[in-house]
């Protein structure tokens, strides 16, 4: 009989890190050893995570695809399902469907300088690509990470930012919105696009991955354009509402595409050809 595409894998929660007052990252392992052995994904893909009795939510798989013993996701406590996920404890079981969607073309990015621009809760879908690049370090050029949040307390994966910054040819620029700094804040103060432009990076042979709130993306694109990064080298991940994740339920349509299947990763060039439906 054909497989039930809506039935999730059962996953044990093996680690929880509270990132901010309302953001957690969760580490999972497959309960079925065979499934664990066979599971592969590509960075940039997403999963659908279940709290049984509450429902499903869609999140990027924010771990590196090189970590084959686990997957991780990160979420903000903001609704019914995420409230239930927030209350899950280590050792408990949740559901996972996936991996779904397309992925960052890490192969095509080989030999290029990588610019990662993230805002707020958008660090997780960038983090997976950063780790992947660092684990295949010889394949990539300089790596720049510009990561901002409203306040210092809203930054996530802060310890990993330090870890990345200590690596060769990696520059990590942290920023918070004006007024979001603390007395001992050592990073920049300002919005991601402004801080990024101030950094005066050379743009030759660069690809950029830009994920964040629409206003951040909107204001970052002109900066990249002024630097000479072409729309075909700028990537983002669309976040249309989804339910099935497998191109059936009709919810994620953005103009002519199913974001769940043809996305979520698009170049700016592709997005410019889509109608404003995201």
């Amino acid at each position: 009989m054909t497989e039930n595409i809506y039935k999730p894998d059962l996953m044990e929660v093996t680690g929880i890190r509270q990132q901010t007052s309302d953001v957690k990252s969760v580490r999972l392992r497959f309960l079925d050893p065979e499934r664990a052995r066979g599971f592969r994904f590509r960075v940039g893909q997403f999963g659908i995570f279940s709290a049984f009795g509450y429902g499903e939510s869609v999140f990027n798989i924010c771990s590196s695809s090189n970590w084959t013993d686990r997957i991780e996701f990160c979420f903000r406590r903001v609704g019914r399902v995420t409230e239930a996920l927030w209350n899950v404890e280590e050792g408990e079981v949740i559901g996972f469907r996936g991996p779904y969607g397309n992925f960052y073309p890490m192969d095509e990015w080989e030999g290029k300088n990588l610019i990662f621009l993230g805002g707020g809760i958008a660090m997780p879908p960038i983090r997976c690509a950063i780790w992947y690049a660092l684990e295949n370090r010889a394949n990539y050029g300089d790596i720049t990470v510009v990561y901002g949040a409203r306040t210092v307390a809203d930054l996530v994966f802060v310890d990993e930012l330090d870890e990345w910054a200590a690596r060769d040819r990696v520059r990590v620029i942290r920023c918070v919105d004006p007024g979001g700094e603390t007395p001992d804040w050592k990073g920049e103060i300002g919005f991601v696009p402004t801080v990024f432009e101030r950094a005066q990076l050379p743009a030759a042979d660069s690809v950029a991955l830009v994920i964040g709130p629409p206003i951040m993306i909107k204001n970052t694109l002109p900066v990249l354009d002024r630097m000479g990064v072409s729309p075909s080298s700028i990537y983002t991940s669309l976040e249309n509402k989804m339910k099935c994740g497998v191109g059936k339920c009709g919810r994620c349509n953005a103009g002519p595409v199913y974001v769940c299947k043809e996305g979520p990763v698009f170049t700016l060039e592709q997005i410019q050809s889509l109608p404003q439906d995201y």
Partner: protein
Amino acid sequence: MSQIIAKSALQELAAAWLAKGTYVAGPCRVKPDLISYAPVSAASELLLEPCRPANSIKEFFFPRHEKLYRYHVTNTGVELFDGEDGAVPQVVFAARPCDAAALPILDHIFNWDFPDRFYLARREATTVVTFACAESDEECFCSSVGLAPDSTCGSDVLLLDAGEGAYEVRCLSDKGRALFADRTQASDREGRSAAAPAPRFDAARIGAFAAAHFDDPFWAAHALPCLGCGACAYTCPTCHCFDIADEGANGSGHRVRNWDSCQAGMFTLHTSGHNPRSNQGARQRQRIYHKFHMYPAKFGEILCTGCGNCGRNCPAGLGVLPVISDIDDGKHL
């Protein structure tokens, strides 16, 4: 030579299927003024003549509400149990050709990449018997989307009125032939259907307009009367959007899917509050765009069979026809 069957034999035929344990669904007078396709327990409940039920037959393949699986949360973990896939032998009897024609169109979406076993199992287990239409009304527009009152798409058997109390039986598949084996007689009478309704619009133009005028004020203006109730989508044979939710209590329940509609304001609402389709105009546009531009571009078929249910069931007098007629008359091109 054709094969015919007496009109009076049809009820007997349905009774024989029921007696064998086959599920039978067809048009029934469910209220004094309402004819709907519904499952029956006795053949006498069926209206075995061409008629125009308010709903479509899609619910016998893609039910309004469907259990995808059962979950049970215990102290030691979670257990999941597969849902029934509903694959019991089923006959959908006395359907309209425009209802049956939706099935090959829906096959694309339920079968690409990730086959949907619930839909596909029912499709496999179901035989569809249609009546060629005896008349069309002012909402019918099958001829504008490449169909006709005697279209065979999606039918296993097509019955056409052959006069003198008989129907011509055209078996179109092995499933159909099995259903009518030894029940028909050879005849030189030919069945007939109603004349095709006059074409109302050029479907290719509608798709092109939707693609080229995505942000046109046209949509908002046309959506003003729309209540966003979704009656168009629920009675549409091709609309297939759904929601997935959990239903249960005390650690035990079902993950289910329910029909949904792009006409609902919350359909695309993000948790952040951002809504890509924040007004009814954008939602009306989506319905036309999806049916006449996106689906043809992806799957080569218009996501509409011209049945007219959207127009007949719309409490605000809309449906796709007035909107696309206004596009096609060129006033907005």
